[in-house]
């Protein structure tokens, strides 16, 4: 193994530019002759557009053009699309309303895009935007709660009753049968609070049309530039695919919100041809709050059936999921196939039935946000299991253990086939690290200080490695979810890897190079990882769903297999040896049992000179490509234990201990993996304690539209975290990886809420469990205040 190889906590190579301020994010880029875009957005949640008066704005200083939905239509552009089609239980296709680039007739949420103002400077564009007069006829707002009530306003004519789909999964009859035989049942109503992703870099775009070559270049804050190019060309019709280059340079976090194709970058690319100059748009944070796709926002009722021994017999879930005003790029998949399929959790549950009503509302579109469906599923399962333990008198750890899946592969009643895992191993290690046995003493000690101490568990499972193309295709995906890689070896032996994965904080430039170093014996400085540019990378499905290791690196692995096979053939002829006797070790090709050896550069140079081997048999050159399609989902799993102390006087919850023991399969770089867990935990705990995207029921205004109103987790909200790993090697990909990017955000919310409800002796408290809510719960419950 090289010193940079798999399993080593190699320090990140990308850090050198970031810590010196030399990163290059989209807003750091400026094009010659660049202009600036500002969007006039709807101030109403729901309104008809009666007229738009541009006269005064057009006359404002510096204005180059002002464009509306009419211009979009005249140029023949179509709207944005949802790349996943789900079907309702009656077999009908989901009822998708149009998703315009610029709204022409009707606006459907506060922040909806109406007019594009282009000017010489951003200040001039902002000033002119203020002069645009849009005459609206307001309509009633539609909320998650009132969306399906009779008489509610209609967001889209195509979706009567605001129902986009009524989806189901599982065997209803078998589940009803399980409930009829149950010794007892447990039920709970849960809300999964709406979240605003808030990557620290706001979205941005530069559209630049080159009239000489009739080509567009779009720099954009994307997690998947090839998918953006595909949508903009094949569906929206901005430009043919081969005439559009999409570059996602350094991207400052995504968490899902930068997967999607939005109106802003679409408009910048399109309009740059109209005005013949580059157009830059950068969101301010207020725009990010209004117009980035949000996450979660479910209302659910769940019931669990148990036998007399506490074994689970069946689970029923009914969920109403907010899709927002328009279907975003993957929004239909999130509350369905990324959600219902995980409702078996780590447990052997013989029968499961889930129904999800996907509804339109007059709010920002809702789509994948770190975890995407899996946190919502985990929240249901881990809250109801904890509730069941309390209601039946079982220890929460032991009730989980008793119901764990213990043999693999395990087919759940909701599609997923768990390939491998060891749920008891992560539970046992977590119990030890969290010192569960010592909890009663700590609780007693806290009570002496006047604090209410509670402990909560979450034994989560998720599905990553997204995903086998045929499987997702059969479930409604409009794309395949493989990944591609090219490994190009230069004559001097240096290696360029072109990957379809995209790094926006995950450290791929380091971990991917570690794999190449492990395989070739080359030092990291001889390996370059290139991503995020459709002009350089052949294709890519991008980074989300914790897929870059299990899928993206597997593609690189396969491409290196091909490079190595060819180089060995060449080396064998150069050394006049049998191919099977040639091995690549520590950066050299040697002939087994002899002292014959050629260094990596000697062989790679020969590959390009074409000397010393038969070029009729072996083509010169050394560059190989692979498209890797996963065989199965991967199933990261683990156990989170949260311990809280609550001040009954103020309702403030303090996280005093947090333990996360995870099974991510093979780990390439433990330092980076731990960093992913830390970040995920803070987003998950943020959901449980602080964050809440709130729209006013009546007006549909976003009440939490800035960092002044939306509580972002801060450093002093947390203790240090205790992490550990209990890996089982994933059998479905060459390196045995499962994925680690989302686990923290998936596992932690129920652990926190289970701890708070344990401390307060109550069944439920809604997320976020703010001090006001906790204080009210204490006042309303019979729990005696700590002395």
């Amino acid at each position: 193994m090289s010193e940079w190889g798999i399993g080593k906590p190699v320090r990140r190579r990308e850090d050198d530019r970031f810590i010196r301020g030399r990163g290059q994010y989209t807003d750091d880029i400026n094009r010659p002759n660049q202009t600036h875009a500002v969007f006039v957005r709807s101030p109403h949640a729901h309104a008809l557009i009666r007229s738009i008066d541009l006269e005064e704005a057009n006359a404002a200083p510096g204005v180059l053009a002002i464009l509306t939905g009419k211009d979009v239509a005249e140029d023949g552009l179509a709207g944005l699309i949802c790349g996943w089609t789900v079907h309702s239980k009656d077999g009908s296709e989901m009822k998708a309303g149009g998703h315009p680039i610029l709204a022409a007739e009707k606006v459907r949420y506060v922040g909806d895009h109406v007019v594009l103002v282009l000017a010489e400077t951003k200040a001039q564009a902002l000033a002119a935007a203020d002069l645009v007069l849009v005459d609206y006829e307001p309509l009633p707002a539609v909320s998650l709660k009132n969306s399906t009530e009779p008489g509610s306003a209609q967001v889209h004519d195509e979706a009567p009753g605001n129902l986009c789909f009524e989806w189901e999964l599982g065997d209803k009859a078998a589940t009803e049968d399980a409930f009829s035989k149950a010794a007892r049942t447990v039920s709970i109503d849960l809300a999964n609070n709406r979240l605003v992703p808030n990557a620290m870099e706001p979205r941005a775009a530069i559209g630049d049309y080159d009239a000489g070559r009739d080509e567009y270049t779009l720099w954009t804050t994307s997690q998947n530039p090839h998918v953006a190019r595909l949508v903009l060309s094949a569906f929206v019709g901005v430009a043919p695919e081969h005439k559009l280059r999409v570059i996602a340079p350094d991207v400052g976090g995504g968490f899902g919100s930068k997967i999607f194709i939005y109106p802003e970058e679409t408009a910048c690319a399109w309009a740059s041809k109209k005005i013949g100059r580059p157009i830059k748009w950068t969101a301010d944070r207020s725009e990010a709050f209004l117009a980035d796709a949000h996450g979660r926002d479910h209302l659910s009722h769940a019931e669990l059936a148990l036998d007399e021994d506490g074994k689970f017999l069946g689970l029923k879930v009914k969920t109403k999921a907010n899709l927002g005003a328009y279907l975003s790029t993957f929004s239909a998949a999130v509350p369905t196939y990324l959600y219902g399929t995980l409702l078996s959790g780590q447990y052997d549950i013989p029968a499961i039935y889930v129904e999800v009503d996907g509804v339109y509302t007059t709010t920002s579109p809702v789509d994948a946000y770190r975890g995407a469906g899996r946190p919502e599923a985990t929240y249901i399962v881990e809250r109801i299991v904890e509730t069941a333990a309390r209601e039946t008198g079982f220890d929460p750890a032991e009730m989980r253990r008793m119901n764990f899946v213990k043999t693999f592969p395990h087919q759940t009643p909701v599609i997923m086939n768990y390939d491998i895992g060891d749920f008891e191993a992560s539970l046992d290690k977590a119990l030890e690290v969290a010192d569960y046995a010592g909890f009663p003493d700590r609780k007693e000690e806290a009570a002496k200080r006047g604090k209410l101490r509670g402990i909560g568990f979450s034994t989560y499972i998720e599905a990553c490695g997204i995903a086998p193309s045929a499987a997702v295709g059969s479930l409604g995906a409009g794309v395949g979810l493989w990944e591609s890689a090219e490994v190009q070896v230069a004559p001097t032996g240096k290696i360029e890897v072109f990957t379809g994965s995209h790094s926006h904080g995950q450290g791929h430039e380091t971990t991917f190079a570690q794999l190449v170093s492990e395989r070739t014996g080359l030092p990291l400085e001889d390996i370059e990882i290139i991503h995020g540019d459709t002009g350089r990378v052949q294709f890519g499905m991008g980074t989300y769903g914790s897929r870059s290791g299990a899928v993206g690196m597997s593609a690189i692995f396969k491409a290196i297999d091909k490079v190595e096979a060819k180089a060995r053939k060449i080396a064998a002829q150069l050394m006049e040896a049998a191919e099977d006797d040639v091995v690549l070790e520590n950066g050299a090709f040697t002939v087994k049992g002899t002292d014959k050896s050629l260094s990596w550069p000697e062989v790679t140079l020969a590959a390009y000179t074409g000397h010393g081997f038969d070029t009729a048999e072996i083509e010169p050159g050394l560059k190989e490509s692979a498209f890797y399609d996963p065989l199965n989902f991967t199933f990261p799993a683990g156990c989170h234990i949260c311990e809280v102390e609550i001040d009954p006087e103020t309702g403030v919850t303090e996280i005093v201990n947090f333990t996360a023991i995870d099974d991510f399969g093979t780990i390439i770089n433990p330092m980076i993996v731990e960093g992913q867990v830390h970040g995920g935990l803070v987003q998950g705990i943020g959901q449980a304690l602080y964050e809440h995207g709130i729209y006013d029921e009546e007006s549909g205004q976003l009440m939490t539209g800035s960092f002044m109103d939306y509580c972002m987790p801060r450093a002093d909200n947390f203790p240090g975290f205790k992490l550990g790993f209990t890996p089982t090697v994933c059998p479905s990909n060459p390196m045995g990886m499962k994925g680690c990017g989302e686990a923290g955000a998936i596992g932690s919310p129920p652990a926190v809420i289970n701890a708070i409800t344990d401390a307060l002796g109550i069944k439920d408290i809604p997320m976020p469990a703010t001090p006001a809510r906790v204080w009210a719960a204490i006042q309303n419950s019979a729990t005696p205040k700590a002395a």
Partner: protein
Amino acid sequence: MPVVTMTVNGKSVSGEVEGRTLLVNFIRDQLNLTGTHVGCDTSQCGACVVHIDGKAVKSCATLALQADGADVTTIEGLAAGGDLHPVQRAFKEHHGLQCGFCTPGMIMTAVDMIRRKPELDEKTVREELEGNLCRCTGYHNIVKAILAASEEMRA
């Protein structure tokens, strides 16, 4: 338009600005020092922190004119003579950054924090980071990096 003159990263610079021009826009748009970032519009996130006369300041909440005559250091000026500042080194060593967007502001805040606080402990570091948001790291390794740099700089 008024002209401002200041020293930025050891070099004297001047430029015409509007009265309303923010220091961060002067630094980014006129000086092309794009390491200083803008992550919000309410002075909460701290991605724009620079030093004015040695003190950490949010450059999104400072007019360029307010920095007239001042000595300004941005993230680009921190590595004196090319050698990384101990705080920069510690952020790399302890994996205190992921996407890198909040990092310049975090590092500039940390340098000032270590200057002001002779004895730093974890609780103090966490409280001092109140004005700097990070969405990637969960702060865990940022805190570790600052404590390590503090220790190294005191040694």
